[in-house]
């Protein structure tokens, strides 16, 4: 026995072999909680859970409240609305955006996964679909599916045109959480980029797209 050695650390078996700071922090936390661990609390979930389909009008109202521009159209009318919004400007689109949504003759760069940031930033407009939209908050969520693309696509162009089908509209945040897949990169968007850092005045457009158009398609 060697009385001069430092005391053996409190090292539960399952953490052995890991870095010492990990052991240190976990050991501290166990010591902090003590032997009489507080019983894990039952979480009362008496709040409103998923409510299903959302009201497209409410979504439109809340989008408009945060200064997104909402357009209503039918599936067949998407290309015409986009044509008007592009007004001759070039757009970048994700790999899986349906060809039929694009107006004939539009200048469109399709992302094959190899576009550089500079190439994406050089386009004025990005056109995408969405994964889900939340009526109660006026939020659209992108999940990087092929018709929405990687996250950088919707970040650098100054105008984002997002196509939402009314069957993608859910009532509330719990609905969206239930529908989304956590493993995917997710971007929740509620209106254009904004700041209230100067005297609490909301100013649209700092670093993300300064203009957000949402096409609500029935």
């Amino acid at each position, binding site marked *: 026995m060697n009385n001069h050695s430092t005391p053996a650390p409190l*090292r539960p078996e399952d953490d052995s072999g890991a870095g010492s700071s990990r052991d*240190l922090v976990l050991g501290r936390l166990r010591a902090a909680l003590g032997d009489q661990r507080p019983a894990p609390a039952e979480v009362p979930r008496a709040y409103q859970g998923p409510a299903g389909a959302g009201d497209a009008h409410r979504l439109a109202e809340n989008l408009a409240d945060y200064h997104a521009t909402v357009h209503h159209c039918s599936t067949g009318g998407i290309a015409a609305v986009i044509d008007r919004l592009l007004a001759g400007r070039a757009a970048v689109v994700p790999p899986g955006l349906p060809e039929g949504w694009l107006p004939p003759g539009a200048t469109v760069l399709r992302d094959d996964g190899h576009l550089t940031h500079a190439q994406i930033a050089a386009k004025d407009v990005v056109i995408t679909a969405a994964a889900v939209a939340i009526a109660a908050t006026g939020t659209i969520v992108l999940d990087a599916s092929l018709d929405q693309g990687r996250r950088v696509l919707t970040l650098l162009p100054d105008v984002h045109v997002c196509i939402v089908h009314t069957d993608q509209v859910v009532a509330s945040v719990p609905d969206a959480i239930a529908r989304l897949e956590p493993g995917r990169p997710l971007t929740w968007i509620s209106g254009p980029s904004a700041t209230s850092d100067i005297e*609490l005045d909301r100013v649209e457009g700092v670093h993300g797209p300064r203009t957000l158009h949402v096409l609500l398609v029935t």
Partner: protein
Amino acid sequence: MTFLGMPARAPRGVGHLRGDQPFPAAAREALANSQLRRNVGHATTTIRGKSAAVIGELPDWQQLREAGSAIKADVMARLPELLKQLEARVTEAGGVVHWAADANEANAIVTSLVRATGSDRVIKVKSMATQEIGLNEALEAAGIAAVETDLAELIVQLGRDKPSHILVPAIHRNRAEIREIFLRAMPGVDPALTDEPRVLAAAARRYLRETFLSTKVAVSGANFAIAETGTLAVVESEGNGRMCLTLPDTLITVMGIEKVLPTWQDLEVFLQLLPRSSTGERMNPYTTMWTGVTPGDGPQEFHLVLLDNGRSAVLADSVGRQALHCIRCSACLNVCPVYERTGGHAYGSVYPGPIGAVLSPQLTGIEDNASLPYASSLCGACFDACPVKINIPELLVHLRNQAPHPAAERAAMAAAAYTMDHPKLYAAAQRAAKLARIAGRRGQGLPRPLSGWTAARDLPELPKETFRQWWAKR
């Protein structure tokens, strides 16, 4: 020596949890600055109104608060297990998890990670945790420039200033002051810059765009981390967060260990509580969620630094630990009469306002922030406003009992804070305290609410000076 397994406070000499002077002295300076008081008053009033309106839209707000509070209590009870689960999920998804016992270690980890990339510059999205540990200073000492990308943080950084509010760090600056700071310190700024908020924001956009596109490493904090899935979430407004979380090759996230949530479903609670009580929006403009590394999308190298820095010591106090439930919404600041008069700087720590008054002393040990638990009138507004129902008044009283002050001083500080909550009493208190001494009896005849203090045995021992004299001398 520190024995493994003993909860530890945040070390001295690093980071921003301790002020240069005690609260009463710092508050006195702030009280003399009427511009500051106007700016802060305008901002807090505005946010309070917006927040009340959108909270009123949710009939189940109280049930959401109950759930949020219970989820956080559950997190604290199972913190070691949840962190190990988070670590496993993040690692499986291609991230690398680091553990930092304190600020020094976290700074060293981040510095060496940045060095390994060969970059001498990082872009940063607002993060309380990295301010707490003084990461920018540590990086600078290592020759690495840290560029703050939030508009407010940029204003603070260019103005060589300190943040004064959790959510709106430049709340103490008005548009004219911001214009001056930009003209003075922003390279390449248009000399014809006006003080229109839109114009100022556009100047920041131009200034930072090139930096976003050319910087290879970003440092972020995290609002939430899901143990079940390994998913991290950052909630923001301007899009600078998305830039930092998407464009660079390497992302380093520094997260206080208390931010972990058990399940994906828990986000449905916090994504309703946070924006409405924070910015007073139904939802903040942008929220980014990512899980480890996604091939072909976003940073291909992801590091998560789990930070203790005193949190284990907070956890060890069964009453005090509820301060770790905080989701940094800043609602308690916006309703606090003392904060409204002093602004954030007076609290000395990166965590100002009511939550700062109970969190900072626990992270550092009460002896290093002994006056902060007195920076309150115990009016209870913070408790009512808190989306996760942290009983801040209870914590304040709990900490006051531990604060090493002479009884008379404690009573005087507490009474001073109380009078700040009741402006008319400010003057009355002066006379009342004098009367009490003249009467030679235990505060008899004091007007309400100071009469409440007559119950406190301390009152007759008040210093032989008026509140204002006392306040002025602090």
